[in-house]
């Protein structure tokens, strides 16, 4: 726990792993790792609590566990009963389970309710050097703080509830180094979409990714969370950024951040959470930030993305037969012709939200572009803050007014149209520029077509009605920088 003397140079991920070893696995059996923070939501927890009940087991550490309602929650009329029976059952079940097992829960209507991956950081519960799990693949978000954070299945949720530990085999490590300075209009979202396009949706399988380099260092915590959030889309279990002054400044003073001597001790330890100079990663990837442009996906997996200035790729030029077939199928589903300039693609909807891009800075970036503008005719624009707190903060800054004057819908917090478990869905055939994380077939609604983009691209697209970057807007073309 206190940093032990070590000869072997270690990566950030290895340091956090080592500091959570309860039992070292022998003869091929897994290590037993302690879990510092367990986040719970209504979709993946019911069977876990039911399993505890069947075996007569308590939640070992309710004080390391927190639950929120997010996947099924409506973003309109939140004071009314939830219409969908399955959604209501899942939420009612979580409420009963939280009550029975003594777990802290932030329900719909509560000021701390919101997407689980927005709530943890904003409460100051997510911090460097801890282990975080949740029955949700986007748990990788919390790695932005230098935490080891990963998604788990329902049996594992039960396991953590009962024991506060998990048996795990060590992950491999991959360095993703992004050097340089982002151009105006290029954001964290474009970095991670470019990374996934480069290594593929399976490129990170079995790895913990560590994002490094000057471009990562210069990002805010919200930007780092966007990047770590999508680590899973590259197939990785987790993504991490080493903590630094940006991390400490974000945390200080948050409700559950350490205070007084604890804060001093924590920061002293957190400063040791850097990959040692001589440490060796199992794999390394480099990306030049200077060259990056706003990115967009054209296909049906997050790796099928290109710069927005490019054209829809021609599958016949793809050598790998599996990838070629996948691209052909994707273009058919997306109703796109090879060779079409992406900026000519017209959308029906814009979704601004999800655990990838629904924090205050995301909303500010979106608002900075649409301010004083009107949305394109016939385009439905929905803005969904990641948490009730983010919504309140945005309203204090007048973002709700900017959104409404633009002609967009200002909604209550939740996962919303990222996966359409609530009524926020695309109609069959509808095309959406979305700040979310998955462009899978039917993800945002049966037959819906998703283009993953940054908040800035979402905003420019909402104004023009076709996939656009801020540089396509005359009033922004002359501007040196766009605040992100």
């Amino acid at each position, binding site marked *: *726990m206190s940093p032990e003397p070590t000869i072997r140079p270690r990566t950030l991920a290895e340091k956090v792993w080592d500091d959570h070893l*309860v039992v070292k696995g022998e003869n091929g059996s897994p290590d037993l790792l302690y879990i510092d*923070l367990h986040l719970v939501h209504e979709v993946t927890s019911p069977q876990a609590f039911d399993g505890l009940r069947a075996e007569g087991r308590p939640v070992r550490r*309710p*004080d390391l566990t927190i639950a929120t309602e997010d996947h099924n929650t409506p973003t309109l009329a939140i004071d009314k009963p939830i219409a969908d029976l399955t959604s209501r059952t899942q939420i009612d079940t979580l409420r009963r389970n939280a009550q029975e097992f003594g777990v802290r829960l932030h329900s719909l209507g509560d000021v701390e309710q919101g997407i689980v991956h927005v709530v943890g950081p904003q409460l100051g519960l997510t911090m460097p050097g*801890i282990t975080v799990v949740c029955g949700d693949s986007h748990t990788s978000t919390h790695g932005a703080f230098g935490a080891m954070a990963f998604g788990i299945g329902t049996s594992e949720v039960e396991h953590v509830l009962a024991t506060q530990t998990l*048996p795990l085999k060590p992950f491999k490590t991959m360095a993703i180094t992004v050097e340089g300075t982002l151009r105006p209009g290029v954001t964290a979202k474009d970095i991670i979409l470019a990374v996934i396009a480069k290594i593929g949706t399976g490129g990170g399988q079995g790895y913990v990714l560590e994002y490094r380099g000057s471009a990562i260092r210069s990002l805010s915590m919200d930007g780092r969370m966007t990047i770590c959030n999508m680590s899973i889309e590259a197939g990785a279990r987790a993504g991490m950024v080493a903590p630094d002054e940006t991390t400490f400044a974000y945390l200080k003073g948050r409700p*559950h951040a350490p205070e007084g001597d604890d804060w001093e001790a924590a920061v002293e*330890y957190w400063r040791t959470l850097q990959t040692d100079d001589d440490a060796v990663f199992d794999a390394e990837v480099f990306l030049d930030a200077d060259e990056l442009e706003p990115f967009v996906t054209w296909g049906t997996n997050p790796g099928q993305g290109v710069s927005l200035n490019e054209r829809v790729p021609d599958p016949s030029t793809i050598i790998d037969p599996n990838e070629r077939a996948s691209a052909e199928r994707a273009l058919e589903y997306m109703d796109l012709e090879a060779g079409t300039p992406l900026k000519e693609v017209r959308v029906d909807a814009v979704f601004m939200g999800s655990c990838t891009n629904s924090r205050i800075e995301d909303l500010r970036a979106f608002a900075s572009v649409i301010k004083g503008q009107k949305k394109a005719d016939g385009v439905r624009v929905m803005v969904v803050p990641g948490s009730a707190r983010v919504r309140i903060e945005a309203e204090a800054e007048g973002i709700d007014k900017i959104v409404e004057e633009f002609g967009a819908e200002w909604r209550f917090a939740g996962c919303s149209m990222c996966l359409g478990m609530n009524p926020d869905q695309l109609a069959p055939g509808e095309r959406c520029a979305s700040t979310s994380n998955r462009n899978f077939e039917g993800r945002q609604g049966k037959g819906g077509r998703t283009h993953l983009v940054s908040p800035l691209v979402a905003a420019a697209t909402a104004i023009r009605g076709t996939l656009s970057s801020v540089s396509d807007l005359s009033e922004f073309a002359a501007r040196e920088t766009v605040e992100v």
Partner: protein
Amino acid sequence: MDKIDILTGVAVPLKRGNVDTDQIIPAVYLKRVTKTGFEDALFAGWRNDPEFVLNQPAYQNPRVLVAGPDFGTGSSREHAVWALRDFGFTAVLSSRFGDIFRGNSGKQGLLTGQVDEADIERLWAAIEAQPGVEITVDLIERTAAIGDLTVSFAIDDYTRWRLLEGLDDIGLTLRDEEAITEFESRREGWRPRTLPVK
């Protein structure tokens, strides 16, 4: 999780290959919020066929499923194991299993024994000669026997040990509870706590 060493019960021949987890339990049943009570969902797509083997009077209260090759392929849903277990099955024998299904089974007290395809055929013949006959599955000896016919099955040592001891994943971890408690006593004060609410 109950311990398994030697079990005896009605054997059911499922003479189909490639029974994936969508066949074992269709997706529509995954919306439930419980971990038990899935007996009605088992093979739901086939159950309304009166000819289906589980609908035949001889095979009521079954205990051991003797299935064709590649049983439990496809989706990772743990519900497939729950449905078999809730229906009353304690063991499945097949010549090949889906990897994830087999892993899930071992963790939830369902024995999956790998039997040579020719031996599966022999077991089917023995069952059909005498529908409703009982089979004895001996996890200690790794054998399955109907009357004079005894075949052997493969199961990895670790899973076998867990089933013999009746240890689910949590039970296994709780054997290290002292180490967990000791670890907790060393945790620093700055680490996050969700309670009391701040």
